[in-house]
């Protein structure tokens, strides 16, 4: 059996504990979230855990005003693609930042958004 250094389940368990974690390719150094079997860059299958600082800046964002079922009470809310300082990006919900102050380039910090059993990726003020 192949040993996986990270699964989605463990990614969310780590996130829930406040630790943002990716994987790093042992050959080319590529970072990835979520975990993959082969490195999309070099096709190697040699991963190590990569703890991430969670610091980054907004690349693009949107304010969602029409929400899917069950999320109407949350709207309007912002979702952003954030480029982390290690070089990879991650999608997350923006929290505790006024919607009218959002802009690309704004520094943000990872935080876990926990609702019952579910954990989601969030970003708040840096």
């Amino acid at each position, binding site marked *: 059996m192949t040993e996986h250094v990270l699964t989605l389940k463990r990614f969310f368990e780590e996130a829930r504990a406040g630790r943002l974690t990716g994987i790093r390719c042992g050959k080319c150094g590529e970072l990835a979230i979520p975990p993959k079997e082969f490195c999309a860059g070099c096709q190697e299958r040699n991963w190590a855990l990569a703890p991430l600082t969670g610091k980054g800046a907004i690349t693009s964002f949107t304010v969602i005003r*029409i929400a899917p079922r069950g999320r109407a009470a949350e709207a309007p809310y912002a*979702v952003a693609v954030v480029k982390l300082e290690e070089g990879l990006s991650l999608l997350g*919900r923006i929290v505790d930042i006024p919607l009218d102050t959002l802009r690309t380039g704004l520094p943000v910090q990872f935080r876990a958004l926990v609702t019952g059993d579910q954990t989601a990726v969030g970003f708040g003020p840096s």
Partner: protein
Amino acid sequence: MRRVAVIGVGVTKFGRHDRTSTELFAEAAAEAIRDADLAPSAIQALYYGNVTGGEGERQLHMGPLAATLLGLPTIPTTRFENACATSHAAFRHAMMEIASGVSDVVLVGGAERVLNIPTDAATEYFAYCSDASLEQTVGLTFPGVFALIARAHMDKYGTTEEQMAHVAVKNHRHGVLNPKAQFQKEITLDTVLKSAYVADPLKLFDCCPFTDGGAALVLAAEHVARKKPRAVWALASQAASDTMFMHEKRDLSRVMATERAAAAAYRQAGKAPADVDVVELHDCFTIAEIVATEGLGFFEPGTGGVAAEKGWTGLGGKIPVNPSGGLKAKGHPIGATGAAQIAEIVTQLRGEAGARQVEGARTGLTHTLGGNTATVLVSLFGRD
């Protein structure tokens, strides 16, 4: 590989229906078979597309159901799901079944029914086409996906909300000329610009509607098609994928899968963007049309917004885009869209498009995008 032609097309009226998606498909399929001037028994296989039937209609195993409702209960069937590119993906595989010599006549298409469920439920089901772990959990919607793309395009190239609005106005103008379009009503720039934000910077009139409808095509091998004077050749059909995750896209202002599928399709057909006379492309949101006109090679990167503003993509313009009204005005029954786009291009190349005819069109292109830009199909069509 054998040459493949489209010899019959059928599309239901797009809009709200009180029939199931498989009923809608069967109606379109019957029209396509009649259009092909074939006996129904000539059909050897069905490639069927639908996306949300399991959620919205509690219906799976739709291939044999569609064939049964059509009156052909014994033909082999397969159901496809590739988000909004579903029936274009089905088309590519149906084409391969004929090209490879397995069958001579194949029926392909799809249908969708979503106006029977509340909008927030439809929004949720469509969001299932994004990743369940990292994207649905943060509340990303499909307007949200294209809003991220729109902001990146605006930041990089200076594309404006007004340029995006021009796409909506143009496609509604075209939709007026299509009796099967969901919306046959002109709108103004003000209509778009004053509509409410759905996912900033996209507003309600930047978005295509939810739609019920079905579309079907009859494909045939060359020896069958030679007997059909209205046959249109499928010159190429290519699919490309890209990472499912918005955060892994190499450049949010581009759709890499469009660029890859288009390059492969032009190569397969021996054509270039300048050879294309008429285009049906995936304008699920206005920004999607702008980015697609760049990715398909009609305009330089970053100039799709200017092209929309200058009217270069309207009927009578440099390259007429979405004469049917596009997803924006014709409607977007996601399982039917790819086949409906092909039906429009076939109709255009036959010279049968009436008031929206692109005069003298000889070569046409269809482009269908699935989900969060992770699936794209591009096909090219031509007359002898």
